[in-house]
């Protein structure tokens, strides 16, 4: 990978990587660190990216997700990464704007559900790309996404009454 190619890759993907990390970690400092480290990893080991196995974006998101999970583990040592039985609590309507409430609901998801939800809903990755990024098969990604959406539906239910009813 030449310097110019690396620069292009950085310019093209830094925002997506940063947004993903920001959504995963709830901390701008951690998101900045993760973004830096993703690209350090790319420039040190450009050969680990194989375009036949998926897009560069999915590859970078894969690195970002590993770093985000590491960050999460450091803070939540004794929690499970994917608690299938997790049932989301309905959100508290008295705290902040709709966007903040939605953000809290997404961040309350177990990490393996959260990352899939963020990559699909916010970064527009295809299921195959997500599967590549989170190192799982497409079926697993689908079921995690399904659980994530069910949890979000439950968590965000109180917001329905806030919306103007459509006729």
């Amino acid at each position, binding site marked *: 990978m030449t310097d110019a190619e690396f620069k292009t890759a950085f310019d093209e993907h830094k925002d997506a990587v*940063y947004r993903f990390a920001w959504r995963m970690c709830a901390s701008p400092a951690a998101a*900045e660190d993760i973004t*830096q480290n993703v690209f350090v990893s790319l*420039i040190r080991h450009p050969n680990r990216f194989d375009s036949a196995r998926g897009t560069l974006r999915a590859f970078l998101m894969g690195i970002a997700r590993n770093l985000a999970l590491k960050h999460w583990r450091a803070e939540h040592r004794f929690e499970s990464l994917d608690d299938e039985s997790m049932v989301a609590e309905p959100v508290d309507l008295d705290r902040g704007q709709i966007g903040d409430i*939605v953000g809290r609901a*997404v961040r309350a998801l177990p990490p393996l559900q959260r990352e899939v939800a963020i990559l699909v809903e916010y970064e527009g990755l295809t299921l195959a790309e997500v599967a590549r990024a989170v190192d799982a098969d*497409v079926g697993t990604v*689908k079921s995690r996404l399904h659980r994530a959406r069910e949890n979000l539906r439950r968590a965000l239910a109180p*917001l329905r009454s806030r919306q103007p009813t459509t006729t």
Partner: protein
Amino acid sequence: MDDQELNRLLREWRAPNAPPDLRPPRADTSRLRWLVSGSIRVPVPVAFAALVLLALWMSWPRLGPTPTQEASAPRRSGEIARYALTGALEGFDAVLLELNFQPGVSAPEHRHPGPIIGYVVDGQMRTAINHEPDQIVSAGGTFFEPHGALHTAFSSAKPDAPVHAVAVLVVPSGSPLTERAAARSAIPAQTQQAKPMPYEAVHKPDFVAASEATFLQDDDILLGVTSGNVAKAYPAADLAQHGAVSDTVPDGPISVTWCGVCNTGLVFRSEVKGRTLHFQYDRMVGANEVQKDLETGTSWQQATGEAIDGPLKGARLTLYPVVRTTWGEWRRRYPNTMVLKPLPGYAELMPSRSRRIKDITRVGPEGAPNGALTLDTRLPARETVAGLEVDRESVAFPFSELRRARVVNDRVGGLPIVVVHQPTSDTTTAFEARVNGKVLTFRPANDDASSVIDLETRSTWSAYGLCLEGPLKGTQLKQVILVPQFWFAWSQFHPGTRVFTAR
């Protein structure tokens, strides 16, 4: 809460972009800085011993051979070691090979008498088997050829640098490591010299009349398209050398595509948002071609028609009705058909490509190709299936089952459909099995299912959905678009697909 409302709520949560002061990292800075300012701890005895050794080495008279030119001469390719195997592999040798290719030098087409697995040490390797598109393997990457695969490209991928690789072969004891490609000796000398032509899309296709299509055999596979009074045939053996052909039919602009790795032939409407797109092979994803359009630079996955990155990401191309059939069957039906004329140099390569395409039951050791995303083991990886997707429900109709059933009445995505398979030409067609709101059930009317009968009105229909005889005479059923391809390709892009079995 419905999906739409959930999606709307999710969109309310916005994330900031990376802060503008975030700069791209520089890989070398940390190491360079370490060279200047880094430190390591060394135990005193070790440091002392190292200094003594250094002093001894510097004062020692220089002995031994001086380096000769040989050391810098280009390394050759050849056998490094060979060991006889025992146990279950008794009678076989494991051979370690070193491969060195100077730029511009490539191996002639060949086969090995056993599987080979390789590792690229230095440089970039260009490799291809069985005339599939070239794969580029960089240093640190690996390549694999199953037993018997025809090695059609093997060279350095860089015009100015050699490639160095090591490989391990397992071969019958004492056998040579390579065999000349057997097929080549049977081909006239002129064709033996035929070089692979550039893998480029055709944007200004030429056509010839059926009588001039001397480059086709009756059992050659093609994609047939009809629009208004026009019938056009695109031979698969020619498409497989281009990836895509842009064309215009009375219905509008279309792109006729073929992926040689998946044996997938699809036709798309190439007009997207008022703009006619022209496609060109870009790369492989999931062992399926991704084509870039020249107008917007968007990348499109051939098997799904989905834009996977670029400005139109998320858009999907509309499938255009197509029939995959043989030249004999198509010409019988459309004597006035036009046929895509191969460009100079490409016609010579059609017979070998055609043999490869017709051999549609390449199951067994070949398995799924490199790069396939998933492996669904319900069917052999290269079993040909006719894929059908209606309203998110997908079904795979294996040719092996269709040859037995010939006519299948099914319901896919809530739609009653009939699939008709003519075993002689392996032509599969599918239609909505409904006329004026009434669902019809079909049975084959003859051995080849070239005509079928519906049980409700006892009308006779052609395999192409036209009622020939009976109360519904003259009615044309609505065509449903089937996509014949290898199972690994269909299953990886349609996880959760149902597989039809004839009872």
